[in-house]
Each structure stands twice: as structure tokens, then as C-alpha cells.
């Protein structure tokens, strides 16, 4: 049986841990709201960009003249996986679930005899992937703007991807991130970036054919890299919201666990305190009776 003093100290330490986790939960909740707002604000641009690309890609038959970003290189050999995770831990299984999906895809691709390259965005994912696949990691980007993810941060990622594409370093590119469903549910998701997959949304409601200024090819050449950045930006924002959501629920359960632990310890403490009082009383009484 632990001494009374030791129990008291444990209770105090669990209490201060609980304070920290509940503060972290509050912070995560506030950040989550901000991240959600930001993701919400970025949606109109992505939506319209998708619509514009959809109508362009629809009119541009994926023939010989189509830009490579749209049609692909024609090969399917080298896959680049861009993995977005968080820079910080203490967010439950957030990073692990993304990494698990990436791992299973790597195994699948390697079983098919394809070359896999990894580009890690975020420190935590890189650390986890480095254990098994250190030789596949071709680059990593972290320390993205923590306070507020800006579009410039997303272009840092997309510029790297585009530079690699121009250097013919991969054929297919996919982006891995956690889609935000709710504060307690985030779904690891694979999004194909290259070649471009038009969204299922109806290309244009009027069905009218557009005129292009300058030519279609030139617009597409400008629009596709831009779209890549927009998709990455959207994914990173979702990922940010998911991270905060995961941290919030992780900290919530940590706070609850600490509460349970305090209850148990306090009960234990009170029991042993009573036992020692009873023991002392018995000693006094039996001492008095003996006289």
C-alpha cells in the first residue's frame, strides 16, 4: 500500500496534467473553428476553378495536343505520394491513420512493380515513414505557417511537385490527407493530382461552348498548375481542421481519463487515511484498557 504522502503527490500531479489537457482541448476547439472558417472561405475559389477546368477539359479532347498535366505522361511507372500530416503530436491517431493508408498503398504499388517516391509535408508523418521507407522519401516540407496557412504555403508544395514533374521524375501523383468529417471523425483520403481527374460536377449548366482568349492550350497551361496549388491548398486546410478536431477529441478523452484516475486515487487515499486513523484509535484504546 502506497503511503499517504505518495498518494497525495500522485493526485496533485494527475490534477495538473488534467489542467493541461483541458486547456489544450479548449485551444484546439478554438483553432478548429478558425480552421473550419478558413476551409469554408477557400471553397468558392476551388469550386469555380473546378467548374472552369471541367468545361475546358471537356472541350479539350484528351488527345495528343493536351498538356501532360491533364493527360499524364502516358506511363504509369513512378508514383509520387504527397503525404500531408501535422507538425505536432498529441492529436490521437491522426497522423497514424494517414500513414497507415499510405503504407498500404505503398505496399500495393510495390507489389505491382511500381516505383514509389514520397514527399512528406509535416514533421510527424515524415518521422513515421522514415522508419520503413527512408529510401523512398525524396523530399519533405515542414514548418508551414502554423498560425494561419496561407495560399503561399500551398504553392511551396505545388511548386516542388511541378518542378519534379517537369524534370520527369514521376508519372502519377497523389495527395494524402485527412478529410474533415466532424470533430470526432476524420477520414484519410487519397486525391489524385496528376493526371488531372475532372470532378463529377456538371461541367457547365448552359451547355454553351466557350470562346477562349488566348487559346485553349495556353489557358490550360496556366490553369492546370494553378489548379494543382488550389487542390493542395484545399487539402491542407482540411487537414488542418482534421488535426485540430483529432486533437480536441484526444484531449477530451485524456481529460476524462484524468478525472477517472483522480476519483480512484482519492478513494484510495481516503480509505487508507481512515484505516490509519482506525488503527491509531485501536492502539490508544487498547493501551488505555491495559492500564
Amino acid at each position: 500500500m502506497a503511503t499517504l504522502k505518495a498518494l497525495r503527490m500522485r493526485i496533485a500531479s494527475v490534477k495538473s496534467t488534467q489542467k493541461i489537457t483541458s486547456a489544450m482541448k479548449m485551444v484546439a476547439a478554438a483553432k478548429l473553428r478558425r480552421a473550419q472558417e478558413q476551409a469554408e472561405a477557400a471553397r468558392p475559389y476551388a469550386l469555380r476553378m473546378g467548374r472552369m477546368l471541367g468545361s475546358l477539359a471537356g472541350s479539350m479532347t484528351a488527345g495528343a495536343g493536351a498538356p501532360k498535366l491533364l493527360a499524364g505522361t502516358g506511363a504509369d511507372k513512378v508514383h509520387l505520394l504527397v503525404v500531408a500530416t501535422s507538425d505536432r503530436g498529441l492529436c490521437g491517431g491522426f497522423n497514424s491513420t494517414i500513414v497507415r493508408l499510405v503504407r498500404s498503398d505503398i505496399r500495393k504499388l510495390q507489389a505491382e512493380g511500381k516505383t514509389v517516391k514520397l514527399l512528406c509535408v509535416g514533421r510527424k508523418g515524415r518521422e513515421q515513414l522514415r522508419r520503413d521507407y527512408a529510401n523512398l522519401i525524396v523530399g519533405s516540407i515542414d514548418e508551414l505557417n502554423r498560425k494561419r496557412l496561407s495560399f503561399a504555403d500551398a504553392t511551396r508544395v505545388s511548386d516542388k511537385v511541378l518542378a519534379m514533374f517537369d524534370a520527369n521524375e514521376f508519372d502519377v501523383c497523389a495527395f494524402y490527407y485527412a478529410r474533415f468529417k466532424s470533430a470526432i471523425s476524420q477520414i484519410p483520403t487519397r486525391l489524385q493530382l496528376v493526371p488531372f481527374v475532372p470532378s463529377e460536377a456538371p461541367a457547365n449548366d448552359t451547355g454553351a461552348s466557350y470562346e477562349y482568349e488566348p487559346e485553349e492550350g495556353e489557358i490550360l497551361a496556366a490553369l492546370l498548375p494553378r489548379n494543382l496549388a488550389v487542390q493542395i491548398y484545399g487539402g491542407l486546410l482540411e487537414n488542418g481542421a482534421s488535426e485540430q478536431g483529432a486533437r480536441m477529441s484526444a484531449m477530451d478523452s485524456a481529460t476524462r481519463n484524468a478525472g477517472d484516475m483522480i476519483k480512484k486515487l482519492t478513494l484510495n487515499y481516503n480509505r487508507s487515511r481512515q484505516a490509519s486513523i482506525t488503527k491509531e484509535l485501536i492502539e490508544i484504546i487498547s493501551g488505555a484498557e491495559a492500564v
Partner: protein
Amino acid sequence: MADKTKFELVAPERLLASLDVDMVVVPGTEGDFGVMAGHAPVISTLRIGTIDVWNGGAITDRIFVAGGFAEASAERVTVLADEATRIADIDKTAVTKEIEGLRGKLGAATEDGERRSIAARIEIASAKLAAA
């Protein structure tokens, strides 16, 4: 004039404007063009310049854009701007300072790609200053 066209201006980070207007004049790469209701569908790239919003025969709003894309159709004009600021909101002293800072960086930059991107930013900032 009764017919209005819906004008939407979006930057990557947020929706900047969504209003009904008589006409918008957009700085296309191959020349400025005005869009009114019932315009033929066009997709165009933009150069650095100013968007003029016309209402009731006068310019009601002027917005600086640093390139982007515009999509016009019979009932709406959508501008996807890389960067957009209302002319009235441009802070001249801040932009001047930004240009000076960028010039300093340009002198220090050694890599070609870096020089190019800084030069492009100086160009945008100078155009912004000229538009204000």
C-alpha cells in the same frame, strides 16, 4: 438598363465580392473587355491590371488584380484572381516600402529562379502603386 450580370470575384483564400452589376471591365491578356448581361461565353486569362465595375453609367468600384482567370457567360462573370485589392484600400506607403524591400532582396538573390520570382513580385507591386 434592366439586365444585370452577376459579378463574382474570388481569391484563393476567400470570396471577395458577389454582386449584381451593369458591366464589368476585365483586363484580359489580349486586351480589356467589358462584360454585360447576355455576353457570349468566354474564358480568358488576366494580366496585372484593374477591374472596373460599372453601375448606372459610372464606375462604382475599382479592384486591382495581379493576374488570374475570368469566365464570362450570359448570366455571370467569375474572376479567379491571384491577388486582389480594392484600389481605395491600397496603402501607398506600405507598397512603396515593400518594393524597396524586394529590391534589396533582388540584389542579394543569386539563384535565377529566386531572382525571377522576386522580379515578378516587384512588377506586381509597382503596378499596384501605379493603379492607386
